[in-house]
Protein backbone atom coordinates (compact mmCIF):
# COMPACT_ATOMS: atom_id res chain seq x y z
CA UNK A 1 0.00 0.00 0.00
CA UNK A 2 2.76 2.38 0.89
CA UNK A 3 4.53 1.57 -2.32
CA UNK A 4 1.36 2.11 -4.25
CA UNK A 5 0.84 5.39 -2.56
CA UNK A 6 4.23 6.76 -3.31
CA UNK A 7 3.94 5.44 -6.83
CA UNK A 8 0.78 7.36 -7.25
CA UNK A 9 2.36 10.44 -5.84
CA UNK A 10 5.28 10.28 -8.13
CA UNK A 11 3.59 9.66 -11.39
CA UNK A 12 -0.01 10.69 -11.32
CA UNK A 13 0.25 13.69 -9.15
CA UNK A 14 3.44 15.52 -9.87
CA UNK A 15 1.83 18.70 -8.75
CA UNK A 16 1.37 17.28 -5.33
CA UNK A 17 5.05 17.50 -5.11
CA UNK A 18 7.49 16.62 -2.44
CA UNK A 19 7.69 20.28 -1.65
CA UNK A 20 4.08 20.34 -0.77
CA UNK A 21 4.27 17.25 1.32
CA UNK A 22 7.15 18.62 3.22
CA UNK A 23 5.49 21.93 3.67
CA UNK A 24 2.46 20.56 5.34
CA UNK A 25 3.19 22.31 8.60
CA UNK A 26 3.99 25.97 8.91
CA UNK A 27 7.29 25.61 10.77
CA UNK A 28 8.25 22.88 8.35
CA UNK A 29 7.53 25.16 5.48
CA UNK A 30 9.53 28.02 6.88
CA UNK A 31 12.37 25.63 7.60
CA UNK A 32 12.30 24.39 4.05
CA UNK A 33 12.35 27.90 2.67
CA UNK A 34 15.22 28.94 4.89
CA UNK A 35 17.10 25.80 3.95
CA UNK A 36 16.66 26.63 0.29
CA UNK A 37 17.77 30.18 0.87
CA UNK A 38 20.89 29.05 2.66
CA UNK A 39 21.64 26.50 -0.03
CA UNK A 40 21.22 29.16 -2.64
CA UNK A 41 23.49 31.63 -0.87
CA UNK A 42 26.01 28.90 -0.43
CA UNK A 43 25.97 28.08 -4.12
CA UNK A 44 26.13 31.72 -5.11
CA UNK A 45 29.09 32.50 -2.90
CA UNK A 46 30.85 29.34 -3.94
CA UNK A 47 30.38 30.26 -7.56
CA UNK A 48 31.46 33.80 -6.93
CA UNK A 49 34.52 32.55 -5.12
CA UNK A 50 35.62 30.37 -7.95
CA UNK A 51 34.54 32.83 -10.59
CA UNK A 52 36.68 35.48 -9.03
CA UNK A 53 39.55 33.04 -8.97
CA UNK A 54 39.00 32.39 -12.64
CA UNK A 55 39.24 36.06 -13.46
CA UNK A 56 42.60 37.14 -14.73
CA UNK A 57 44.67 38.95 -12.18
CA UNK A 58 44.71 38.78 -8.45
CA UNK A 59 44.86 41.21 -5.63
CA UNK A 60 48.60 40.85 -5.26
CA UNK A 61 49.24 41.90 -8.83
CA UNK A 62 46.76 44.71 -8.56
CA UNK A 63 48.35 45.99 -5.40
CA UNK A 64 51.82 45.83 -6.80
CA UNK A 65 50.70 47.37 -10.03
CA UNK A 66 53.08 47.91 -12.88
CA UNK A 67 56.12 47.36 -10.82
CA UNK A 68 55.26 43.83 -9.85
CA UNK A 69 58.09 41.38 -10.25
CA UNK A 70 57.38 37.69 -9.89
CA UNK A 71 59.26 37.56 -6.55
CA UNK A 72 57.34 40.49 -5.13
CA UNK A 73 54.06 39.04 -6.28
CA UNK A 74 54.96 35.72 -4.67
CA UNK A 75 55.90 37.39 -1.43
CA UNK A 76 52.70 39.37 -1.30
CA UNK A 77 50.64 36.37 -2.24
CA UNK A 78 52.18 34.51 0.62
CA UNK A 79 51.57 37.38 2.97
CA UNK A 80 47.91 37.53 1.93
CA UNK A 81 47.49 33.78 2.04
CA UNK A 82 46.79 33.57 -1.66
CA UNK A 83 49.32 30.82 -2.14
CA UNK A 84 47.28 28.29 -0.23
CA UNK A 85 45.14 25.85 -2.15
CA UNK A 86 41.83 27.13 -3.43
CA UNK A 87 39.90 24.77 -1.25
CA UNK A 88 41.70 25.76 1.87
CA UNK A 89 41.20 29.44 1.08
CA UNK A 90 37.57 28.75 0.48
CA UNK A 91 37.21 26.78 3.65
CA UNK A 92 38.95 29.52 5.55
CA UNK A 93 36.52 32.06 4.18
CA UNK A 94 33.49 29.89 4.71
CA UNK A 95 34.30 28.96 8.27
CA UNK A 96 34.90 32.62 8.96
CA UNK A 97 31.49 33.55 7.58
CA UNK A 98 29.81 30.78 9.51
CA UNK A 99 31.29 32.13 12.68
CA UNK A 100 30.16 35.62 11.74
CA UNK A 101 33.52 36.91 10.56
CA UNK A 102 33.52 38.26 7.04
CA UNK A 103 37.28 38.43 6.94
CA UNK A 104 39.68 41.22 6.17
CA UNK A 105 39.92 43.19 2.99
CA UNK A 106 43.06 42.11 1.21
CA UNK A 107 43.53 45.42 -0.49
CA UNK A 108 43.04 47.76 2.42
CA UNK A 109 43.64 45.45 5.35
CA UNK A 110 40.50 46.69 7.06
CA UNK A 111 37.85 44.34 8.40
CA UNK A 112 35.25 43.66 5.76
CA UNK A 113 32.41 44.12 8.18
CA UNK A 114 33.59 47.63 8.86
CA UNK A 115 33.93 48.49 5.18
CA UNK A 116 30.55 47.00 4.47
CA UNK A 117 28.76 48.44 7.47
CA UNK A 118 29.31 52.07 6.53
CA UNK A 119 28.17 51.57 3.00
CA UNK A 120 25.30 49.29 3.72
CA UNK A 121 23.50 52.09 5.50
CA UNK A 122 23.94 54.30 2.46
CA UNK A 123 22.75 51.73 -0.01
CA UNK A 124 19.87 50.65 2.14
CA UNK A 125 18.74 54.25 2.45
CA UNK A 126 18.93 54.74 -1.28
CA UNK A 127 16.97 51.58 -2.07
CA UNK A 128 14.49 52.19 0.67
CA UNK A 129 13.69 55.69 -0.51
CA UNK A 130 13.35 54.41 -4.05
CA UNK A 131 11.09 51.53 -3.12
CA UNK A 132 8.99 53.65 -0.82
CA UNK A 133 8.43 56.09 -3.66
CA UNK A 134 7.98 53.54 -6.40
CA UNK A 135 5.05 51.75 -4.83
CA UNK A 136 2.58 54.59 -4.29
CA UNK A 137 3.62 56.38 -7.45
CA UNK A 138 3.15 53.30 -9.59
CA UNK A 139 -0.15 52.73 -7.94
CA UNK A 140 -1.35 56.23 -8.59
CA UNK A 141 -0.21 56.31 -12.20
CA UNK A 142 -1.38 52.78 -12.86
CA UNK A 143 -4.83 53.46 -11.46
CA UNK A 144 -5.25 56.72 -13.30
CA UNK A 145 -4.17 55.16 -16.57
CA UNK A 146 -6.52 52.23 -16.07
CA UNK A 147 -9.44 54.38 -15.01
CA UNK A 148 -8.98 56.67 -17.99
CA UNK A 149 -8.00 53.92 -20.36
CA UNK A 150 -7.37 55.10 -23.91
CA UNK A 151 -7.48 58.71 -22.79
CA UNK A 152 -4.71 61.14 -23.62
CA UNK A 153 -3.20 60.56 -20.19
CA UNK A 154 -3.20 56.84 -20.69
CA UNK A 155 -1.63 57.01 -24.10
CA UNK A 156 0.99 59.50 -22.99
CA UNK A 157 1.77 57.22 -20.11
CA UNK A 158 2.06 54.15 -22.29
CA UNK A 159 4.42 55.84 -24.66
CA UNK A 160 6.58 57.44 -22.06
CA UNK A 161 6.82 54.25 -20.10
CA UNK A 162 7.87 52.45 -23.21
CA UNK A 163 10.56 55.05 -23.78
CA UNK A 164 11.68 54.86 -20.17
CA UNK A 165 11.73 51.10 -20.22
CA UNK A 166 13.77 51.19 -23.38
CA UNK A 167 16.46 53.21 -21.69
CA UNK A 168 18.70 51.50 -19.25
CA UNK A 169 19.26 53.09 -15.87
CA UNK A 170 22.55 54.52 -16.93
CA UNK A 171 21.04 56.48 -19.79
CA UNK A 172 18.26 57.84 -17.63
CA UNK A 173 20.78 58.72 -14.97
CA UNK A 174 23.09 60.40 -17.44
CA UNK A 175 20.28 62.47 -18.86
CA UNK A 176 19.05 63.41 -15.40
CA UNK A 177 22.50 64.54 -14.36
CA UNK A 178 22.84 66.60 -17.48
CA UNK A 179 19.41 68.11 -17.11
CA UNK A 180 19.25 68.85 -13.40
CA UNK A 181 22.82 68.81 -12.27
CA UNK A 182 25.26 70.15 -14.77
CA UNK A 183 23.91 71.80 -17.86
CA UNK A 184 20.37 73.09 -17.98
CA UNK A 185 19.33 73.49 -14.39
CA UNK A 186 21.61 73.40 -11.42
CA UNK A 187 19.04 72.19 -8.98
CA UNK A 188 20.61 69.11 -7.52
CA UNK A 189 24.14 67.95 -6.89
CA UNK A 190 25.09 65.76 -9.83
CA UNK A 191 27.25 63.61 -7.61
CA UNK A 192 26.27 62.22 -4.25
CA UNK A 193 29.07 63.16 -1.95
CA UNK A 194 28.23 61.76 1.42
CA UNK A 195 31.04 62.03 3.95
CA UNK A 196 31.99 58.79 5.55
CA UNK A 197 30.60 59.36 9.02
CA UNK A 198 27.46 61.05 7.84
CA UNK A 199 24.10 59.40 7.52
CA UNK A 200 22.78 59.68 3.99
CA UNK A 201 19.55 61.32 5.08
CA UNK A 202 21.52 64.28 6.33
CA UNK A 203 22.05 65.03 2.67
CA UNK A 204 18.62 64.75 1.12
CA UNK A 205 19.77 66.81 -1.86
CA UNK A 206 22.33 64.21 -2.73
CA UNK A 207 19.70 61.51 -2.78
CA UNK A 208 17.37 63.20 -5.21
CA UNK A 209 18.91 62.26 -8.53
CA UNK A 210 19.94 58.68 -7.72
CA UNK A 211 16.58 57.98 -6.18
CA UNK A 212 14.88 59.57 -9.16
CA UNK A 213 16.82 57.35 -11.54
CA UNK A 214 15.77 54.24 -9.69
CA UNK A 215 12.24 55.47 -9.30
CA UNK A 216 11.75 56.27 -12.97
CA UNK A 217 12.79 52.80 -14.02
CA UNK A 218 10.73 51.10 -11.34
CA UNK A 219 7.62 53.20 -11.71
CA UNK A 220 7.49 52.92 -15.44
CA UNK A 221 7.70 49.17 -15.20
CA UNK A 222 5.45 48.58 -12.24
CA UNK A 223 2.75 51.03 -13.14
CA UNK A 224 2.28 49.24 -16.44
CA UNK A 225 1.62 46.05 -14.57
CA UNK A 226 -0.71 47.80 -12.17
CA UNK A 227 -2.52 49.38 -15.05
CA UNK A 228 -3.11 46.02 -16.69
CA UNK A 229 -4.21 44.36 -13.50
CA UNK A 230 -6.54 47.26 -12.79
CA UNK A 231 -8.07 47.03 -16.20
CA UNK A 232 -8.66 43.35 -15.61
CA UNK A 233 -10.29 44.06 -12.31
CA UNK A 234 -12.39 46.87 -13.70
CA UNK A 235 -13.70 44.41 -16.27
CA UNK A 236 -14.45 41.81 -13.64
CA UNK A 237 -17.91 40.70 -12.71
CA UNK A 238 -17.69 41.91 -9.18
CA UNK A 239 -16.91 45.42 -10.33
CA UNK A 240 -19.82 45.17 -12.73
CA UNK A 241 -21.88 43.93 -9.82
CA UNK A 242 -20.76 46.89 -7.74
CA UNK A 243 -21.93 49.20 -10.50
CA UNK A 244 -25.23 47.38 -10.62
CA UNK A 245 -25.53 47.86 -6.89
CA UNK A 246 -25.50 51.58 -7.61
CA UNK A 247 -22.21 52.38 -5.94
CA UNK A 248 -20.29 55.55 -6.73
CA UNK A 249 -17.21 55.29 -8.91
CA UNK A 250 -14.84 56.41 -6.17
CA UNK A 251 -16.09 53.68 -3.90
CA UNK A 252 -15.86 51.13 -6.68
CA UNK A 253 -12.31 52.14 -7.43
CA UNK A 254 -11.05 52.27 -3.89
CA UNK A 255 -12.98 49.59 -2.05
CA UNK A 256 -13.74 47.12 -4.76
CA UNK A 257 -11.03 47.38 -7.35
CA UNK A 258 -7.99 48.41 -5.35
CA UNK A 259 -7.53 45.42 -3.05
CA UNK A 260 -8.00 43.01 -5.90
CA UNK A 261 -5.83 44.84 -8.37
CA UNK A 262 -3.11 45.01 -5.79
CA UNK A 263 -2.96 41.28 -5.36
CA UNK A 264 -1.21 40.53 -8.65
CA UNK A 265 0.82 43.70 -8.38
CA UNK A 266 2.30 42.90 -5.01
CA UNK A 267 4.55 40.07 -6.14
CA UNK A 268 5.58 42.21 -9.07
CA UNK A 269 6.31 45.02 -6.68
CA UNK A 270 8.57 42.87 -4.65
CA UNK A 271 10.36 41.83 -7.80
CA UNK A 272 10.77 45.50 -8.61
CA UNK A 273 12.18 45.95 -5.15
CA UNK A 274 14.66 43.21 -5.94
CA UNK A 275 15.56 44.88 -9.22
CA UNK A 276 15.96 48.16 -7.47
CA UNK A 277 18.48 46.60 -5.13
CA UNK A 278 20.26 45.19 -8.16
CA UNK A 279 20.05 48.50 -10.00
CA UNK A 280 21.70 50.23 -7.11
CA UNK A 281 25.10 49.09 -8.37
CA UNK A 282 24.83 51.00 -11.63
CA UNK A 283 23.24 54.03 -10.07
CA UNK A 284 25.82 54.24 -7.34
CA UNK A 285 28.54 54.08 -9.91
CA UNK A 286 26.91 56.80 -11.96
CA UNK A 287 26.44 59.17 -9.07
CA UNK A 288 29.59 58.32 -7.18
CA UNK A 289 27.32 57.32 -4.35
CA UNK A 290 29.25 55.67 -1.56
CA UNK A 291 27.32 52.45 -1.26
CA UNK A 292 27.88 48.75 -1.60
CA UNK A 293 27.53 48.95 -5.37
CA UNK A 294 30.54 51.19 -5.52
CA UNK A 295 32.28 48.92 -3.09
CA UNK A 296 31.56 45.95 -5.33
CA UNK A 297 32.95 47.65 -8.41
CA UNK A 298 35.99 48.77 -6.49
CA UNK A 299 36.63 45.38 -4.98
CA UNK A 300 36.17 43.63 -8.29
CA UNK A 301 38.72 45.86 -9.90
CA UNK A 302 41.02 45.21 -6.95
CA UNK A 303 40.18 41.49 -7.01
CA UNK A 304 39.62 41.88 -3.30
CA UNK A 305 37.94 38.57 -2.75
CA UNK A 306 36.65 38.83 0.81
CA UNK A 307 34.96 42.13 0.03
CA UNK A 308 33.47 40.84 -3.21
CA UNK A 309 32.14 37.82 -1.37
CA UNK A 310 30.61 39.86 1.38
CA UNK A 311 28.91 42.29 -0.97
CA UNK A 312 27.60 39.50 -3.16
CA UNK A 313 26.33 37.72 -0.10
CA UNK A 314 24.39 40.79 0.96
CA UNK A 315 23.00 41.56 -2.47
CA UNK A 316 22.09 37.95 -3.16
CA UNK A 317 20.39 37.60 0.19
CA UNK A 318 18.30 40.71 -0.33
CA UNK A 319 17.54 39.71 -3.86
CA UNK A 320 16.53 36.27 -2.85
CA UNK A 321 14.45 37.59 -0.03
CA UNK A 322 12.36 39.73 -2.35
CA UNK A 323 12.06 36.99 -4.91
CA UNK A 324 10.88 34.66 -2.24
CA UNK A 325 8.45 37.24 -1.01
CA UNK A 326 7.10 37.55 -4.53
CA UNK A 327 6.70 33.79 -4.72
CA UNK A 328 5.02 33.53 -1.36
CA UNK A 329 2.65 36.36 -2.08
CA UNK A 330 1.87 34.75 -5.37
CA UNK A 331 1.19 31.25 -4.06
CA UNK A 332 -0.61 32.74 -1.10
CA UNK A 333 -2.91 34.43 -3.51
CA UNK A 334 -3.61 31.42 -5.69
CA UNK A 335 -4.13 29.48 -2.49
CA UNK A 336 -6.79 31.94 -1.55
CA UNK A 337 -8.53 31.47 -4.84
CA UNK A 338 -8.85 27.75 -4.41
Amino acid at each position, binding site marked *: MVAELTGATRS*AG*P*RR*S*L*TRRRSATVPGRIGWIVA*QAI*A*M*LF*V*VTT*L*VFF*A*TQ*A*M*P*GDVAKVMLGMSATPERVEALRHQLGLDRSLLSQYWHWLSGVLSGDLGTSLASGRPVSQLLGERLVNSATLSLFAVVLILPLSLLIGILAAQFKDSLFDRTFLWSS*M*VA*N*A*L*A*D*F*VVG*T*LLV*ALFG*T*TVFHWFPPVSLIPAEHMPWWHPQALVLPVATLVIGGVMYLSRLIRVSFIDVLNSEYVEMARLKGLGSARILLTHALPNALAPAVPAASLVAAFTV*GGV*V*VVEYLFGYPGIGGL*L*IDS*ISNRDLPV*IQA*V*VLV*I*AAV*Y*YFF*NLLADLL*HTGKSGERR
Partner: protein
Amino acid sequence: MAFALAGPLLAPHDPAKSIALPYATPGDGLPLGADQLGRDVLSRVLAGGFHLAWMAPVAAIAAVALGALVGIAAAFYGGITDTVLMRVMDVLLAFPALLFTLLFVSVIGPKPWLLVVLTAIGMTPGVARVIRGAARPLNDREYVMWSRTVGIPARTILARCFLPNVSSPLLVELGMRLMWSIGILAAISFLGYGIQPPAADWGLMISENRTGLQNMPWAVLAPVACIVLFTIGGNLIAEGSARVIARTEGRG
Protein backbone atom coordinates in the same frame (compact mmCIF):
# COMPACT_ATOMS: atom_id res chain seq x y z
CA MET B 1 15.04 47.56 -37.30
CA ALA B 2 15.67 47.56 -40.99
CA PHE B 3 17.10 50.97 -40.40
CA ALA B 4 19.61 49.56 -37.95
CA LEU B 5 20.66 46.83 -40.35
CA ALA B 6 20.84 48.97 -43.44
CA GLY B 7 22.24 51.96 -41.60
CA PRO B 8 25.90 51.22 -42.30
CA LEU B 9 25.26 51.34 -46.03
CA LEU B 10 23.72 54.78 -45.84
CA ALA B 11 26.45 56.37 -43.83
CA PRO B 12 27.89 59.35 -45.69
CA HIS B 13 31.32 59.01 -44.09
CA ASP B 14 33.45 56.27 -42.68
CA PRO B 15 32.01 56.04 -39.19
CA ALA B 16 35.40 55.27 -37.71
CA LYS B 17 37.22 58.11 -39.34
CA SER B 18 38.01 61.42 -37.83
CA ILE B 19 37.11 64.06 -40.32
CA ALA B 20 36.62 67.09 -38.19
CA LEU B 21 37.58 68.57 -34.89
CA PRO B 22 36.18 66.97 -31.75
CA TYR B 23 32.64 68.06 -31.01
CA ALA B 24 32.43 70.09 -34.17
CA THR B 25 28.97 71.56 -34.37
CA PRO B 26 26.53 70.52 -37.08
CA GLY B 27 27.37 72.08 -40.35
CA ASP B 28 28.49 71.38 -43.88
CA GLY B 29 28.47 67.68 -44.60
CA LEU B 30 28.04 66.95 -40.90
CA PRO B 31 24.30 67.19 -40.33
CA LEU B 32 24.64 66.06 -36.71
CA GLY B 33 28.12 67.34 -36.04
CA ALA B 34 31.13 65.40 -34.85
CA ASP B 35 31.82 63.38 -31.74
CA GLN B 36 34.61 63.45 -29.23
CA LEU B 37 37.15 62.23 -31.75
CA GLY B 38 35.84 64.34 -34.57
CA ARG B 39 33.92 61.54 -36.26
CA ASP B 40 30.68 62.12 -38.08
CA VAL B 41 27.85 61.56 -35.64
CA LEU B 42 25.32 60.82 -38.34
CA SER B 43 27.47 58.11 -39.86
CA ARG B 44 28.16 56.63 -36.48
CA VAL B 45 24.53 56.65 -35.53
CA LEU B 46 23.63 54.98 -38.79
CA ALA B 47 26.33 52.40 -38.38
CA GLY B 48 25.94 51.98 -34.65
CA GLY B 49 22.80 49.92 -34.71
CA PHE B 50 24.16 47.11 -36.75
CA HIS B 51 25.56 45.06 -33.93
CA LEU B 52 22.61 45.78 -31.72
CA ALA B 53 20.25 44.83 -34.51
CA TRP B 54 21.38 41.27 -34.57
CA MET B 55 22.73 40.85 -31.07
CA ALA B 56 19.69 42.03 -29.19
CA PRO B 57 17.14 39.84 -30.99
CA VAL B 58 19.39 36.82 -30.88
CA ALA B 59 19.98 37.30 -27.17
CA ALA B 60 16.31 37.87 -26.51
CA ILE B 61 15.25 34.85 -28.52
CA ALA B 62 17.87 32.66 -26.88
CA ALA B 63 16.85 33.84 -23.43
CA VAL B 64 13.19 33.30 -24.12
CA ALA B 65 13.80 29.87 -25.63
CA LEU B 66 15.96 28.73 -22.77
CA GLY B 67 13.74 30.31 -20.16
CA ALA B 68 10.66 28.76 -21.70
CA LEU B 69 12.28 25.37 -21.70
CA VAL B 70 13.23 25.64 -18.06
CA GLY B 71 9.95 27.21 -17.02
CA ILE B 72 7.80 24.67 -18.79
CA ALA B 73 9.84 21.73 -17.59
CA ALA B 74 9.69 23.03 -14.03
CA ALA B 75 5.96 23.51 -14.24
CA PHE B 76 5.31 20.15 -15.83
CA TYR B 77 7.47 17.93 -13.69
CA GLY B 78 6.98 19.87 -10.49
CA GLY B 79 8.43 18.52 -7.29
CA ILE B 80 12.14 18.23 -6.98
CA THR B 81 12.80 19.05 -10.62
CA ASP B 82 10.89 22.27 -10.15
CA THR B 83 12.70 23.18 -6.98
CA VAL B 84 16.12 22.45 -8.41
CA LEU B 85 15.52 24.23 -11.70
CA MET B 86 14.07 27.29 -10.08
CA ARG B 87 16.78 27.49 -7.47
CA VAL B 88 19.36 27.29 -10.21
CA MET B 89 17.59 30.21 -11.82
CA ASP B 90 17.65 32.06 -8.51
CA VAL B 91 21.36 31.53 -8.28
CA LEU B 92 21.78 32.96 -11.75
CA LEU B 93 19.63 35.91 -10.81
CA ALA B 94 21.46 36.60 -7.62
CA PHE B 95 24.87 36.29 -9.19
CA PRO B 96 26.03 39.83 -9.77
CA ALA B 97 25.72 40.54 -13.47
CA LEU B 98 28.65 42.87 -13.40
CA LEU B 99 31.00 40.24 -12.05
CA PHE B 100 29.61 37.73 -14.46
CA THR B 101 30.17 39.95 -17.46
CA LEU B 102 33.58 41.04 -16.33
CA LEU B 103 34.63 37.47 -15.70
CA PHE B 104 33.82 36.19 -19.11
CA VAL B 105 34.75 39.26 -21.03
CA SER B 106 38.15 39.36 -19.39
CA VAL B 107 38.76 35.65 -19.88
CA ILE B 108 37.42 35.28 -23.38
CA GLY B 109 37.56 38.82 -24.66
CA PRO B 110 34.72 41.05 -25.80
CA LYS B 111 33.49 38.81 -28.60
CA PRO B 112 30.03 39.67 -29.87
CA TRP B 113 28.80 36.10 -29.48
CA LEU B 114 29.95 36.11 -25.90
CA LEU B 115 28.02 39.27 -25.19
CA VAL B 116 24.95 37.67 -26.70
CA VAL B 117 25.40 34.58 -24.57
CA LEU B 118 25.94 36.62 -21.43
CA THR B 119 22.92 38.77 -22.08
CA ALA B 120 20.80 35.73 -22.82
CA ILE B 121 21.89 33.91 -19.69
CA GLY B 122 21.30 37.00 -17.64
CA MET B 123 17.71 37.22 -18.79
CA THR B 124 16.86 33.53 -18.73
CA PRO B 125 15.83 33.29 -15.07
CA GLY B 126 13.28 36.04 -15.42
CA VAL B 127 11.72 34.37 -18.44
CA ALA B 128 11.74 31.02 -16.69
CA ARG B 129 9.86 32.43 -13.73
CA VAL B 130 7.20 34.03 -15.84
CA ILE B 131 6.72 31.04 -18.10
CA ARG B 132 6.64 28.68 -15.18
CA GLY B 133 3.91 30.83 -13.66
CA ALA B 134 1.96 30.74 -16.91
CA ALA B 135 2.48 27.03 -17.42
CA ARG B 136 1.60 25.81 -13.95
CA PRO B 137 -2.16 26.29 -14.30
CA LEU B 138 -2.02 24.20 -17.46
CA ASN B 139 -1.46 21.15 -15.29
CA ASP B 140 -5.03 21.56 -14.13
CA ARG B 141 -6.40 21.90 -17.62
CA GLU B 142 -8.40 18.93 -18.69
CA TYR B 143 -6.59 18.41 -21.95
CA VAL B 144 -3.30 18.05 -20.14
CA MET B 145 -4.84 15.64 -17.66
CA TRP B 146 -6.26 13.67 -20.53
CA SER B 147 -2.87 13.48 -22.19
CA ARG B 148 -1.44 12.16 -18.96
CA THR B 149 -4.16 9.56 -18.53
CA VAL B 150 -3.63 8.11 -21.97
CA GLY B 151 0.11 8.14 -21.46
CA ILE B 152 1.22 10.58 -24.14
CA PRO B 153 5.00 10.99 -23.68
CA ALA B 154 6.10 13.99 -21.66
CA ARG B 155 8.03 15.40 -24.57
CA THR B 156 4.92 15.46 -26.73
CA ILE B 157 2.80 16.98 -23.99
CA LEU B 158 5.37 19.70 -23.50
CA ALA B 159 5.60 20.43 -27.19
CA ARG B 160 1.93 20.19 -28.07
CA CYS B 161 0.06 21.28 -24.96
CA PHE B 162 2.39 23.50 -22.98
CA LEU B 163 4.45 25.38 -25.48
CA PRO B 164 1.63 26.62 -27.72
CA ASN B 165 -0.45 27.62 -24.75
CA VAL B 166 2.16 29.84 -23.20
CA SER B 167 2.90 31.47 -26.51
CA SER B 168 1.27 34.76 -25.69
CA PRO B 169 3.17 35.35 -22.47
CA LEU B 170 6.15 34.07 -24.39
CA LEU B 171 5.77 36.74 -27.02
CA VAL B 172 5.14 39.42 -24.45
CA GLU B 173 8.32 38.26 -22.76
CA LEU B 174 10.12 38.33 -26.06
CA GLY B 175 9.13 41.94 -26.53
CA MET B 176 10.21 42.87 -23.05
CA ARG B 177 13.42 40.91 -23.19
CA LEU B 178 14.25 42.45 -26.51
CA MET B 179 13.88 45.80 -24.84
CA TRP B 180 16.01 44.75 -21.93
CA SER B 181 18.65 43.04 -23.97
CA ILE B 182 19.14 46.29 -25.81
CA GLY B 183 19.50 47.99 -22.47
CA ILE B 184 21.90 45.38 -21.18
CA LEU B 185 24.03 45.36 -24.32
CA ALA B 186 24.12 49.11 -24.34
CA ALA B 187 25.09 49.06 -20.69
CA ILE B 188 27.91 46.61 -21.33
CA SER B 189 29.13 48.87 -24.10
CA PHE B 190 28.73 51.81 -21.81
CA LEU B 191 30.99 50.21 -19.24
CA GLY B 192 33.48 49.55 -22.00
CA TYR B 193 33.23 45.78 -22.13
CA GLY B 194 31.00 45.52 -25.13
CA ILE B 195 31.61 46.34 -28.75
CA GLN B 196 35.09 47.73 -28.82
CA PRO B 197 35.92 51.11 -30.22
CA PRO B 198 36.51 52.43 -32.77
CA ALA B 199 33.50 50.47 -34.01
CA ALA B 200 30.37 52.53 -33.82
CA ASP B 201 27.80 51.43 -31.29
CA TRP B 202 24.95 53.36 -29.74
CA GLY B 203 25.72 52.40 -26.16
CA LEU B 204 29.35 53.16 -26.66
CA MET B 205 28.53 56.49 -28.26
CA ILE B 206 26.52 57.54 -25.26
CA SER B 207 29.31 56.67 -22.93
CA GLU B 208 31.99 58.27 -25.10
CA ASN B 209 30.19 61.49 -25.64
CA ARG B 210 28.23 62.00 -22.49
CA THR B 211 30.54 64.66 -21.11
CA GLY B 212 30.18 66.65 -24.28
CA LEU B 213 26.44 66.74 -23.85
CA GLN B 214 26.35 70.47 -23.50
CA ASN B 215 28.37 71.36 -26.57
CA MET B 216 27.25 68.63 -28.85
CA PRO B 217 24.05 67.11 -27.53
CA TRP B 218 23.50 65.25 -30.80
CA ALA B 219 26.36 62.90 -30.17
CA VAL B 220 24.44 61.56 -27.17
CA LEU B 221 20.84 62.29 -27.99
CA ALA B 222 20.92 60.75 -31.45
CA PRO B 223 21.99 57.31 -30.22
CA VAL B 224 19.59 57.60 -27.28
CA ALA B 225 16.77 58.33 -29.67
CA CYS B 226 17.84 55.43 -31.85
CA ILE B 227 17.87 53.01 -28.94
CA VAL B 228 14.43 54.17 -27.94
CA LEU B 229 13.06 53.86 -31.46
CA PHE B 230 14.67 50.52 -32.00
CA THR B 231 13.36 49.18 -28.74
CA ILE B 232 9.89 50.44 -29.25
CA GLY B 233 9.88 49.07 -32.78
CA GLY B 234 10.93 45.66 -31.56
CA ASN B 235 8.43 45.79 -28.79
CA LEU B 236 5.58 46.75 -31.07
CA ILE B 237 6.39 43.88 -33.38
CA ALA B 238 6.39 41.43 -30.49
CA GLU B 239 3.21 42.85 -29.00
CA GLY B 240 1.52 42.81 -32.36
CA SER B 241 2.29 39.19 -32.92
CA ALA B 242 1.16 38.39 -29.39
CA ARG B 243 -2.13 40.02 -30.19
CA VAL B 244 -2.50 38.08 -33.43
CA ILE B 245 -1.87 34.83 -31.60
CA ALA B 246 -4.19 35.78 -28.78
CA ARG B 247 -6.91 36.22 -31.34
CA THR B 248 -6.75 32.60 -32.45
CA GLU B 249 -7.13 31.66 -28.85
CA GLY B 250 -10.59 33.12 -28.59
CA ARG B 251 -11.98 32.82 -25.14
CA GLY B 252 -10.68 29.27 -24.76
